[in-house]
């Protein structure tokens, strides 16, 4: 289902647009959580046990979150949002600009139809940006990566209802869009059983053209390294998408030396993703950036400085009882940008990226007010420790 079409719904309010011959960003977002032929599915029979991975709750949620980010926050003046195709299993309701739409189910037929539309849109202009997002089960055999669709297992070759991502990527080589971004939030575990289907390992979704290697700027942001697992939970969605959105919202951003805007480049995203996903703890998940890219392509321009988590503590800990933290930009030291309640510590705050002076103040004379310099820069978190000297009753 096309949940956003610029021609139909009009331009977005928040996005800026460059003057001149610009392209558009077209997105195909797929989140598969319902697998009909796996345990918990409604079909009368199950796919062979080696591929029975069960149902996922987090994938459709993650797909919706990503689509929402595109609709509400995405800003690329050189390629504003042009369209979003959203397919989820189970079908979810998506509130777009004007209307709410029910996403199409992630069946092969629907995916093929959405892919064709998406391809045509992307193909219309070399300046277009193609965004492909998939969340759901994935299987690898050798290096071939199959993304499993809702009806996976329906036919004797279960991979008939899957996308062969390598082939799809290859098909996109013939697409004119010079920048193509792929976000694959799925497991990449190798399966010896899948190896038997290597000759017909999913659908390419398009015609594999004449031999030529992909020469586009086409990074693939994979949730995990080949052979690895990608994790998620019903309550928090998937780790990769959560980390991806955190990076897109600023944790992967850096300031442009030319425009001085906060931008997210392919390189910045590639470097920040592993750091952010580490914060989810064990078991470890190692996102990988693959495909060809120079790293300098701007994915997203932030409206302002990103917010970064800051943790300020002081020593000795006894000072927390009567201390109050404040943070002021170095450029305007008298302007208190952030302040804590008295008696709380260590102090954690989300602050805009910048250069600050952090001070801890006291009402009593037991401790002397102290300060330190702190740089708040993505991906964070930034931390500082303020050494607080004790003083006597006279304040010396």
């Amino acid at each position: 289902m096309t949940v956003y079409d610029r021609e139909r719904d009009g331009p977005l309010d928040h996005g800026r647009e460059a003057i001149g011959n610009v392209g558009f960003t077209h997105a195909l977002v797929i989140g598969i959580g319902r697998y009909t032929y796996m345990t918990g599915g409604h079909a009368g029979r199950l796919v062979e046990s080696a591929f029975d991975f069960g149902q996922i709750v987090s994938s459709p949620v993650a797909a919706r979150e990503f689509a929402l980010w595109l609709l509400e926050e995405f800003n690329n003046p050189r390629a504003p949002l042009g369209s979003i195709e959203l397919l989820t299993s189970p079908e979810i309701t998506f509130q777009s600009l004007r209307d709410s739409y029910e996403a199409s189910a992630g069946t092969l037929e629907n995916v093929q139809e959405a892919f064709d539309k998406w391809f045509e849109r992307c193909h219309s202009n070399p300046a277009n940006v193609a965004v492909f997002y998939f969340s759901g089960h994935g299987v690898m055999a050798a290096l071939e990566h199959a993304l499993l669709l809702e009806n996976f297992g329906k036919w004797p070759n279960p991979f008939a209802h899957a996308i062969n991502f390598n082939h799809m990527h290859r098909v996109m080589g013939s697409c004119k869009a010079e920048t193509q971004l792929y976000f694959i939030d799925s497991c990449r575990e190798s399966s010896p059983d899948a190896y038997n289907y290597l000759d017909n390992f999913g659908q390419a979704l398009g015609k594999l053209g004449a031999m030529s290697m992909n020469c586009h700027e086409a990074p693939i942001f994979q949730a995990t390294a080949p052979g690895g697992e990608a994790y998620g939970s019903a309550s928090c969605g998937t780790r990769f998408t959560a980390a991806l959105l955190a990076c897109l919202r600023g944790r992967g951003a850096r300031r442009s030396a030319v425009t001085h805007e906060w931008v997210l480049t392919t390189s910045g995203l590639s470097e920040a993703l592993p750091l952010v996903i580490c914060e989810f703890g064990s078991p470890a998940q190692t996102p990988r950036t693959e495909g060809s890219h120079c790293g300098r392509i701007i994915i997203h321009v932030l409206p302002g400085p990103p917010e970064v988590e800051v943790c300020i503590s002081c020593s000795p800990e006894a000072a927390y009882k009567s201390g109050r933290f404040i943070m002021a930009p170095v450029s305007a030291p008298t302007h208190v940008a952030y302040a804590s309640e008295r008696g709380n510590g260590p102090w954690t705050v989300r602050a805009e990226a910048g250069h600050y002076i952090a001070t801890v103040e006291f009402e009593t004379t037991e401790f002397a007010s102290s300060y330190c310099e702190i740089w708040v820069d993505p991906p964070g978190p930034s931390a500082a420790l303020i050494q607080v000297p004790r003083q006597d009753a006279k304040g010396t």
Partner: protein
Amino acid sequence: MSVPISIRLEQPPSTVTVPVFAELLDGDLCPVTLFELYTNRTKEIELAPGRYLLRARLPSGELLRKSIAVPSEGRVPPFVFHGPSPPNADLSLQHFLGDLKGTPHPLPYRDLESTWVRLWHCVNQKWESTRWPARFHGLGDVAVSELSLPLDCVYFLQIGGPLVPHRFVALPPSRESLRILIRATRHQVGFTGGVAVRVTTADAEAEVLMRYDAMGATSPAAFVAELLATQLEESPDSKANPNRALLACYFLLKSRDYERLDSCSIELDKQASWLLDANIIKATSDVARGNSSANWRLQDLVPSSSRVPIYTAGLRYLQDLLREFRLDPRKHTAELNLNFNWVARYANAVDWTESRLTFLGTHPEQPDARGPRGTPNDKDLLFLGTVNHLKSIPAWPSANPDVSEDLIGRLHQRDPAALDEMYRRYQRVLRGYLRGRCTSLSDAEDLLQTTWILILENLDRFDPSKGNFAAFAKYWASITCKRHYDPRNVWLHATVLFSQLTREPDSESFDQREDLAERASKLRGSEQVELRKSLANIIRIVFEESNPPHQVLAFGFCRLLGWTPKRFVDELYFQTLREVAERLFADLRQELPEGNVPLSGLQARFMNRLDGTLLEEVLDPATRNRYPALHLQELARTRISEYCTEPDTSVRNVSHWVYSVTRRLTGKRFAKELGRYYP
């Protein structure tokens, strides 16, 4: 107005300079300059007065952040930063590169002990394995080995064990020596078996590029790749290093810098045309540019038995290329299909998280994603646990002398107090040692006195650098024992003792081996037939009585076949009692001529015993109490390792089992029987 400032990143080892990607941000976090900052080398730059944030991305993934204040007046002192402190000075480069990341934890001794390594290389289109040509040293929780390899073919390290899936790790074609680290890991335990292997070359720049690229740090990687490519173009032959050229070419290919890739790949071809990686790089860049001459390259890409890419990226590109060819109906041939399947088999068994090709399999030509485990019956395995100085991790003990130099000096001067001290220390050890080797307690007591006399007579020959005093004393105890039994023509004992003396590593440093060999050979004369009968009787007694099976097996190997307890532990530690028994009887059949002893009947009865549980088959209450966890287990399925409650003392345990059986044999019950064979 700009002020000259100098920045220095101090990072051990101080002799090594490693390029690190650094950027300076101003107060608004706008990038001011990007530059390479070599560790332990001062970088001079000019900055306008103000405050800056220096951010340096370390190859370990760590982000070093330092504040710099450049005053408008006065002399600016150098800004010196310190990198992360390594846990061990000898491993500082590896720590800096991130090879020691993760929570350090000791490698379980049992795992280490049975884990082996060996080297594979290709000779005349045929893969051959050889013993690992270097030693492993213990450094903290890491086992380290260093070696240099000729630049003539692809080399693989293979590691495996009963608990560690057999896997191959490609060794980079480096002109410098390689450093191999083996340590415990909790990462991908299913693949690694809990044992990680890290290979580092001394070429720090190439190593940094590999780490940056692996972590997805595109900008830093591009920075270092630029350095390498420039060096390669400007002085191609001065630093001929295929590994460096390979990494630079892979990065240029990834970033689609084809023009520079062309010049660098020519250099790579000159340095190592035997590398399949070189062909893959050239073919990929040709195909990407639509170069029609790519057709002939297909033949170059045909993987042969000796050609496997060194880097994982190479396998990826190769598979992409073959897939491309396969999708083209004009090029789709049966041979291409075969090649694609060949690559797919490797791809299925490869650890894609590693930069250098790492795959599971028993043979370089037979990748096996299932991860076979076990110990091949080959002589070229180097067991990590059998290396003397690798007894355990952490805290591998060095060959510490067990007596002080002062005491040795006093001994040499025949100081009575020093002699008393030595007697007090080693009397108990020697008595036990002799009791395990003598046919009676009285013999052992007699020989103990003789041993001390011999030790004192030969004290001048004791050299602490060749072994500790305990080994020296045991050596002379063995000599005493042998001299005692030699005239009595007890072939069994003479042979066993001779075997022990020649195989005991601790005694290698001492002489008289030739003398012993000569004397032992004299024993094998006309009386050998009779002595074999004695041996056959002993075998019968041992296997028919109710000695605990694990003790019987230890006795069988160490007494009847002449193995040392150490060898027993090295080779059989993780085998089940059934496997060990089958091996023992097979070996005994080779030692004894047919008809001497009904081995088949003995084996059948012994195997029947193994079908029972420990409670059913072991009558000795002390043994039962010692292994409560094994009470209800089928004996045949228990492993030797399960009888060694303390891994560090497993060799001592085996000696004790042998001694236990010997003592029972020399007890009253068998005195008469044994008296016939031991005059």
